[in-house]
């Protein structure tokens, strides 16, 4: 234990240096972002809708381009990548979305197998036949999120929480170094939200995977994340431990609307 404490040196996974992001319609989405995230951290990004949470996360795997500054992810300078390099880089980064983004008319395992598609040989791509190793990896990923027995069932027969777990398994099968999640529980009810968040926490701890998620529900963020990043109007206005977040801090991040945000969540019934 002591030994591991000493060897566990902080490794920078994500480093934003003076990053700006301006959309083509001149809207400034991110402004002077400086941020360092280390391996194994569990980070939640909070803020009002439109504050730039989603943009921040999507820059990391180059779903959005940054306008200026530098962004280094796992030793790769993301801004400099081109074409095929971007696709190869993305393979290392898993991403989960609010709307699950699954092919509902086919089986669970086929959805998970999608994550191996970029590695397939030409004839496997044409026929859609996957190797046994890939199938085993996909099943193992399903086992990690606890829905192994659903492997051969069509996705449209699963509940919302189970579908988000399929998406999670698909991401795990990629064997990523970083897990990004864009509002992963926004369309789930409180009970399944908790299950999915527990999955994230477990993956973070057991596999020492960096997890970065943006989330609408402040209470959930405070409960699960080690570190909170508050975004307001494209700038980072809070960056620190989750236990140090005070009501004043929240009030500042949410421009004094924290009461409304909480009330809205009560109404949605998504309050955990």
């Amino acid at each position, binding site marked *: 234990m002591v030994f591991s404490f000493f060897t566990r040196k902080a490794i920078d996974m994500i480093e934003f240096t003076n990053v700006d992001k301006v959309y083509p319609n001149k809207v400034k989405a991110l402004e002077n972002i400086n941020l360092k995230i280390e391996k194994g951290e569990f980070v939640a990004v909070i803020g009002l809708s439109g504050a730039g949470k989603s943009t921040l996360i999507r820059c990391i795997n180059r779903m959005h381009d940054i306008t200026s500054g530098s962004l280094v992810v796992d030793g790769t300078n993301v801004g400099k990548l081109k074409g095929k390099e971007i696709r190869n880089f993305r*393979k290392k980064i898993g991403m989960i979305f609010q709307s699950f983004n699954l*092919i509902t008319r086919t089986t669970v395992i086929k959805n998970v197998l999608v994550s191996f598609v970029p590695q397939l040989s030409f004839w496997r791509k044409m026929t859609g036949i996957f190797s046994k190793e890939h199938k085993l990896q996909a099943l193992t990923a399903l086992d990690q999120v606890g829905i192994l027995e659903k492997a051969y069932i069509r996705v449209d027969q699963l509940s919302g929480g189970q579908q988000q777990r399929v998406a999670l398994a698909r991401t795990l099968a990629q064997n990523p170094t970083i897990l990004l999640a864009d509002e992963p529980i926004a369309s789930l009810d409180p009970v399944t939200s908790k299950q999915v968040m527990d999955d994230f926490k477990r993956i973070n701890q057991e596999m020492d995977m960096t997890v970065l998620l943006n989330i609408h529900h402040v209470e959930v963020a405070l409960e699960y994340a080690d570190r909170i990043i508050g975004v307001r109007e494209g700038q980072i206005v809070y960056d620190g431990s989750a236990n140090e977040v005070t009501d004043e801090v929240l009030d500042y991040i949410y421009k004094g609307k924290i009461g409304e945000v909480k009330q809205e969540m009560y109404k949605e019934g998504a309050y955990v």
Partner: protein
Amino acid sequence: MNAIEKQLYAKPSKNSYIYVISAVLLGLMIWSLFVIDFGSMEESGWAIAKNILLGIVTPDLDFLLDFTTQGVMYLLVETIAIAFLGTILGAMLAIPFAFLSASNVVPKPVAFITRLLLIFIRTVPSLVYGLMFVRVAGQGPFTGVLTIALISIGMLAKLFVDAIEDLDTSIFESMTSIGCTTFEKIRFGIVPQLIAIFLSIGIYRFDMNLREASILGLVGAGGIGAPLIFAMNAYRWNEVGSILIGLVILILIVELWSNYMRNKLVRG
């Protein structure tokens, strides 16, 4: 006028539509009574009706269960073959038409002209195509296949376009984040979605085509239609009975199968 009377006159407007439609229909119906020619009914009609009923009740069982090229069973199989091959050919031809008429794929004028062409293809009765193809390929089941293929294109293309426009493209976002190319997105994101829907549409059309194929024989395009009309013209009502029984049973079975399969494909 008190409140109750006001309420009485404030009826929802939907009813007035129903009244208008009913009145128009009634008027047209009365008019049509003068146009339809009721004088042609002959005395012998009742005798024939009785004979047809007798024929259906006492079908020619040997003929019904005959598997040689002259029997009902063979003719039914031939009808199925015409409908099946016609559906497959029609589905293959419909795919390019579907893309040509999808306004989010090709320029608007091209899509519009293709749609117009498809509407026209659908309006022409199948029998007319049958008669035209008889001129091209002669009498026989091959003509039936060509006819069925052509009449299927219109509806299949339209349903295919609807399916393409209804595609769930959210999967693209995830596949982009995994690092997939455009080809991979189509192959593993779109094709699996479309296969189920296209199959279900194809089965539905096969069900319809079987009915079409059974009448195309009347113009010499193969299948069970021609023997039916021969038997009727020769007043061999037992044979007519056998053919009708075979046809009705076949169509009912295919309809049940088609409903079951489509339910399974769409709902899983």
